[in-house]
């Protein structure tokens, strides 16, 4: 036996878990939706995803190198930002748009704030918001599913916003179409079943908890049922609202981002409800057909405030 040993404070064992492990499992959970996108929109979806992911990882590596830090691209977090940003883009958007969005997401929204764990806003959503402001045309030109060609088709939510339709029937769609992704929309948001598969996996693995996604989706459903129709209170189509746009993608994969959401479960429910209310308000009365991205970004800014006021009760403190 040696006569000297490694001395450290307890604990002397750790759970076999790492940030990289968590990030890569989230990436894994996003894969089904990407595969379905490839099937729905054709190879161009793949090119958009690739250019976004490569730009994100490359930017992260370059900046860390330039700042003399350890390059942590392998932890999967830049990969995740690239993937999520791509999932928010139309399948036929120019590849350089995807790349620029990723560069903005990583360089400005993440690294400029100090890197992993220090960003205020979800980087992928910040990238998307930047692209919406810079090149709205590319960002809102969606393609028709199963054509594999740049035949454009508006999203169900924008048709409704423009008053060209008032519900699923007018749109010539069924709820089943919305579930499987047979509609216009961003490449990773359309297939609800694939997203739910990933979301359930993350819930099962304990990587995300139900609090944010459930409160978010439920709030949108209730709000849009109540106020969603110009015909009056309680005439809105909740199911249609939940299945359209980026709600499921946002609720399971972006509002649950650890870094930019509250740490307590109670805080996460408040966060989810507020995201839902904002999404509802934007969809119903705002200038955009869809409100998921901005709702989450606004609530990201409020997350530290929620953490400050919503804390767990301390042991022994009065109830």
């Amino acid at each position: 036996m040696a006569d000297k040993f490694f001395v450290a404070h307890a604990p002397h064992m750790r759970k076999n878990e790492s940030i990289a492990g968590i990030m890569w499992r989230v990436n894994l959970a996003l894969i089904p939706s990407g595969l379905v996108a490839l099937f729905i929109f054709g190879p161009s979806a793949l090119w958009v995803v690739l250019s976004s992911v490569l730009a994100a990882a490359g930017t992260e590596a370059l900046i860390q190198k330039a700042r003399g830090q350890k390059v942590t691209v392998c932890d999967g977090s830049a990969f995740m930002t690239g993937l999520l940003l791509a999932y928010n883009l139309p399948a036929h958007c120019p590849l350089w748009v995807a790349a620029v969005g990723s560069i903005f997401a990583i360089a400005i929204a993440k690294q400029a704030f100090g890197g992993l764990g220090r960003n205020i806003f979800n980087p992928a959503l910040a990238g998307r918001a930047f692209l919406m402001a810079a090149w709205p045309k590319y960002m809102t030109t969606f393609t028709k599913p199963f054509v594999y060609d740049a035949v454009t088709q508006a999203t169900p939510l924008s048709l409704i916003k423009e008053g060209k339709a008032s519900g699923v029937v007018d749109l010539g769609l069924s709820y089943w179409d919305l579930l499987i992704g047979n509609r216009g929309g961003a490449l990773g948001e359309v297939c609800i079943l694939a997203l739910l598969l990933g979301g359930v996996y993350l819930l099962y693995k304990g990587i995300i908890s139900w609090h944010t996604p459930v409160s978010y989706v439920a709030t949108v459903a209730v709000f849009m049922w109540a106020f969603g129709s110009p015909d009056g209170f309680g005439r809105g189509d909740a199911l249609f609202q939940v299945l359209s746009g980026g709600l499921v993608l946002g609720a399971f994969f972006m509002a649950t981002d650890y870094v930019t959401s509250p740490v307590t479960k109670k805080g996460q429910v408040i966060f989810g409800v507020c995201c839902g209310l904002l999404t509802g308000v934007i969809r119903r009365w705002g200038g955009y057909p869809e409100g998921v991205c901005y709702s989450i970004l606004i609530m990201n800014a409020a997350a530290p405030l929620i953490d400050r006021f919503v804390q767990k009760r301390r042991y022994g403190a009065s109830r």
Partner: protein
Amino acid sequence: MVRIEEHKHLTENKPIEQAALPRRVVIPLVQHLGKRLDRVFVKAQDHVRRGDCLATSDKGVFAPVHASISGTVKQVADFPHPVFGFCRAIEIESDGKDEAAESMKPRTAGEIASLTAADIRTIVFESGIVGLGGATFPTHIKLAPARPIKDFIVNGAECEPYLTADSRLMIERSLQIIEGVKLVARTIQPENVFIAIEDNKPQAIRRMKEAAGSLGWHVVVLKTAYPQGGEKQVIKSCLRREVPPGKLPFDIGVLVQNVGTVFAVYEAVYFRKPLYERVMTVSGACLENPKNLLARLGTPVKDLLEQCGPMTREPKRIIMGGPMMGIAQFTPEAPVIKGTSGILALDEDEEKEQEESFCVRCGQCVENCPIGLNPGLIALAIAKGRLDLAQEYGIMDCIECGLCAYLCPGRRHIVQAIKAAKIKIRKGKTT
């Protein structure tokens, strides 16, 4: 609280074994929470027998220490100490005879029946009994509470991974533990008695239920979760009451004693046997034959590890106690003391220790902190030199269970930073 890896299967079915008689022992003058013993009764060349009192003190918080073998006192000098690094201690070389002190004669049933509460307290004090769960607070003080005790909890939760000493004790010595509980109950006269055991010890639960029989005590089966056996947690789990911050259990009329302590009370009263040996789990991935050993206090850690060998691989860390709260030893020469519930030979290395990453605010530490703190936030405040903020966030309430650092996917040294900062705060520093 949360369920963590247990590693108890290594020893949970191994009956308690008497450890080999050590050739020499080192008896430190501090084996309790309190002041160092200043009245030493022996000097070099003195002959002592097992059970002889070696040192005590006059006033304050302390518990006397006793010889654990018979033999010759070599010297009273500074020796490695498992908690303090070095400490004044009495070294005894064995004469191989293991003679017992004359005083160690069993009491008759009549004698035991006639003992008053004060008598029992005196016996507990003279036997040097301290809390064997790890805190090592002198037991005679806990048995003289300033206000009446309504609820007495016997803590057999044993939530630390690897450790099975209490579990084996409950399985093999259930009747004796019950006698010990009766003695303590006689001293403090509680209204209710609870015996708290985690549900991962079905055998111990069964034995204790059988032994408790129709005494009207509650054998409480707790959910297995770390740190269920912490004093505050076990109180909450048994009574659904909480100890207010800065208060002690007796402030809310509760006394908690570890099963090992209660067993020591039994032995002290029935056999006039001072606390010179205890059951400890010797385990870890590096040992071929992990065991539960009844070891003499003062035995070098190395001797006990060798009895559980051979080593399957070179240990990187030697831990005294459990892996969550135990203390890493810098030398295998350190003696086992009253608070030693286990010795672990682990191969977890420093490399894994050093890959500290950023906080990604995953909330694991917040969600599971048994005290309801935000440990990650406290650690960030400490890193910024803001001990004032750390105090506002409740750092002084931290029980240092280590769950936050165990769970952290960023492998951040959360509880480690908290421990260091608490020491600074107690010294009155502000940054």
